[in-house]
C-alpha cells in the first residue's frame, strides 16, 4: 500500500511489522471485524498519526500495538517478537518495559496524588522507594508540574491531569508512546500545550510517538499519517491530503461525531 512507506527505510530501525492483523469481537451472535487485515510497518522514531471515522478500529489497532490485547489472526511482530504468541505475563512485561500510554480521559488513579500516579508506572519494575520517588519527581518536573505533585487528580485541571499522565508514560523512558485521542477532552489552548509537549519530547528523546486523533491540526504535525476505514488501511481521502483542501475536513468530522 502506498501509505505504509516508512519515513526511515532502514530495516534495522523497524519497530513494528504487522501482517494480516485482524481483530474480531463477538457479541452474542453478532461478530464485528474491528480490524480486517492490517499490513503495517512502523519504524523507530516516527510520529505516526492514525485517523479515521468513529468505529473504524483506531483504538483497537492502538491496543494491538500496545500489547493490551492479541490479534485474532495475523502476526504482529515487535522488535522481532510476535506479540500474538505471548502469554498474559509476557504481555504485561512487554507493556511495562516498552510502552507508555496516554488516554483521552487521562485515566489517573483518582485516590493517588500526581506524584503517586507517576510512581505506579515504576511499580512493575520493583525499583526502591527512594529511587521511585526521585524519578517520578523528575518526570513531573519534565512536564512542568513539580508544584502540583501532592494534588489528587480531582484537584487538577484537565490539561494538568494529561500532563501527569504524560509524565507517567515517560517516567520509564519507553521506546513507544501510544496516545488515544490525548487532546479529545481539552480546549484548543491546552491541546496546543499538550501536543507541543509530546512533540518536544519526541524530538528530544527520539521516541516513537503513535497518536490516534480526529484533530486535523494535531494530524498535521505528524511525520506520517494513516487512515483507517472499517478496519482497513485506506489511502487518505482527497480532501484530507495535505494542501489547500484540508480546511474542509473539520466539517466532515463534526457531522460524523454528532
Amino acid at each position: 500500500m502506498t501509505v505504509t512507506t516508512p519515513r526511515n527505510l532502514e530495516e534495522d530501525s523497524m519497530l513494528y511489522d504487522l501482517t494480516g492483523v485482524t481483530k474480531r469481537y463477538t457479541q452474542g451472535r453478532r461478530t464485528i471485524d474491528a480490524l480486517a487485515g492490517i499490513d503495517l510497518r512502523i519504524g523507530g522514531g516516527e510520529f505516526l498519526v492514525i485517523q479515521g471515522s468513529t468505529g473504524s478500529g483506531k483504538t483497537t489497532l492502538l491496543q494491538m500495538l500496545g500489547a493490551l490485547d492479541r490479534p485474532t489472526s495475523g502476526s504482529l511482530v515487535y522488535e522481532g517478537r510476535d506479540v500474538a504468541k505471548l502469554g498474559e505475563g509476557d504481555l504485561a512485561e512487554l507493556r511495562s518495559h516498552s510502552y507508555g500510554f496516554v488516554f483521552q480521559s487521562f485515566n489517573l488513579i483518582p485516590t493517588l496524588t500526581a506524584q503517586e500516579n507517576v510512581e505506579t508506572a515504576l511499580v512493575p519494575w520493583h525499583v526502591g522507594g527512594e529511587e521511585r520517588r526521585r524519578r517520578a519527581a523528575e518526570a513531573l518536573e519534565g512536564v512542568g508540574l513539580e508544584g502540583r505533585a501532592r494534588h489528587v487528580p480531582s484537584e487538577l485541571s484537565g490539561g494538568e491531569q494529561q500532563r501527569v499522565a504524560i509524565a507517567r508514560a515517560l517516567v520509564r523512558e519507553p521506546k513507544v508512546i501510544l496516545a488515544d485521542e490525548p487532546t479529545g477532552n481539552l480546549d484548543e489552548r491546552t491541546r496546543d500545550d499538550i501536543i507541543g509537549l509530546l512533540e518536544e519530547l519526541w524530538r528530544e528523546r527520539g521516541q516513537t510517538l503513535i497518536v490516534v486523533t480526529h484533530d486535523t491540526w494535531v494530524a498535521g504535525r505528524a511525520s506520517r499519517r494513516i487512515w483507517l476505514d472499517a478496519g482497513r488501511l485506506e489511502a487518505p481521502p482527497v480532501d484530507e491530503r495535505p494542501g489547500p483542501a484540508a480546511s474542509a475536513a473539520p466539517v466532515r468530522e463534526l457531522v460524523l461525531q454528532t
Partner: protein
Amino acid sequence: MFFTYIYRELRRRHRQALLTALGLAVGVGLVVAVTAYAGGVGDAQDTVLHSLYGVGTDITVSQTQKQSQSGPPQFNMNPGSTSKQGKAFSRDAVRSAPGQQSLSATKVASIKSLDGVAQAVGGLTLTSTHVSGSFAKALSQSSAQPPGSSSSSSSSSSSSSQPAPSASQAPIKVSSFSISGVDVSQTGLGPMSSTELVSGRTFTTSEATTKVAVLDKAYAKQNSYALGDTVTISGAKYTVIGLVTSAAGTSSTSNVYIPLTLAQKMSGNAGKVNQIYVRAASAKDIATVKTEIKTVLPKATVTTAQDLADQVSGSLKSASQLADNLGKWLAIAALVAAFAVASLLTVSAVSRRVREFGTLKALGWKSRRIVGQVLGESVVTGLAGGVIGVIIGVVGAQLIAHFSPVLKATVGQTATAASGPGGAAPPGMQAALGQAAQTVVVHLTAPVSIQLVLLAAGLALLGGILSGAFGGWRASRLRPADALRRVD
C-alpha cells in the same frame, strides 16, 4: 506503594469500608460473647459438679437398699414401767444413711484393681439422730411414729426420717446431722474431695483411729463449734481440727467428717462402706470403667460425673441450652451475613474500579499484583473489623456477666429418683440432701481467653480474605483492553 495505595483507597470509600468492618465486627463480637457466655456456663456447671461431686472423682459406686429395709431410726421410747414416766431421756442413734446398703470394703480393692482405674476409695455416710426430752405421761405404748414433720434440722441440707412427737407428748427435741467416714490415707479422693478447707487442717494419715473431726463451716457456726472444741458423736468426744465448705462456697455435703474406721465402728459397719469413689486413669476410660464396675457389682448404682451433669436442671440448664442453641446459631448467622455483605461490597467496589485496574494493567501491573492490592484492602478492613469485634465481644461478655441473674442448678429430683432402682443421684449426695434435690447457686462469668481473641481476629481476617479473594478474582479476570473501554 502497596500500603499507600491501600490507605488512599480505603480513605476514599471509608464509609463502605467501615460498614464492612462493622458487619464483620458484629459477627465476630457475637462469636466472642456467645463463646465467652458458653464458657461461663461451662465453668458454672463445673462449679456445680465440683461442689456436689468432688474434684477428681470420676465415678461413684453405691448400692441402693430395697425400700422395705430402709426405715427411720428406731428409738426405744417405751418407758417400760410407769415409774419412768416423766423422766428425762437423751438418746443417740447413728445409722447408715437411709436408702443405702453397705458394701464390703473388699469391693474397694477389687474396683481398684480394674483396668483403667487410677484410684478407688471407700466412704461411709451416716446419719446421727439425737432425741432428748422426757417421756410422755400418758402415751400409747408404741414406738416412735413413722416419718412426719421434722421438728428441727441442723442444716438445710440435713434431714432424715425422724420420730415425730405426737400431740400428746411432752416436748421432745430431735436433731440430726450427717457424718461422713473419711479414709484418712486418701483425703484427695472420697467424701472430702468436694470440700475446701477454710480453717484448721484435714486428717493426717496417722489419724485413722484418732477421735478428730472436720466440720462443715455453716454447721459449726450454727451449733457454735470452733476449732479445738469437742463434738459428741454417739457418746464419744471428737476434737474439731478443721472447717470446710463446699468448693462452690456453699454448705458441704456432710455436716461432720471423721476417720472412716471410727465411723464404721460406731455404726456397727466394721469393714463396710456405702460409697466408693473412683478415679479413672484417663477421662476416655470412664465409660469402660463404668461397665467394668457394673460387672463386678451388678446391683450397684454407678454414677459418672457426666451422668450427674445430665441431671442438672434449673436456670443453669436453661442458660446452657440458650448458649448451645440460640447463641451458637445467632453467631453463625451473623458471621455468614457479615461475610456475604463484605464480599458483596468488595465486589461492587471492584466493579466500580474496572477502568482503574485496566489502566494499571496497561502500565504493566500483573494480575497478581492487582489481586494482592484488593486482598490487602480487604485484609485491613477485616483486621479493623476483628479489633472492633473483639471489643464488642469483650464488652458484651462483661455485660452478660454483669446483668445475668444468679443461676441455680438442681441435681436429683425427688425421693423416688433417689431410692428407685438405679437411683439417679449418688447416695453420698442423697445422704446429705435427704430426699430432696440439692440446689447450688452460681454466679455466671463470661471469660474471654487469649485463644478466643485470636479466634475472633482470625475469623474477621478470614472474612476479609474471603471477600478480598472474591473481589480480586473479579479484578483479575478483566482483560485490559476491555477494561479500558469501559466508560464509567
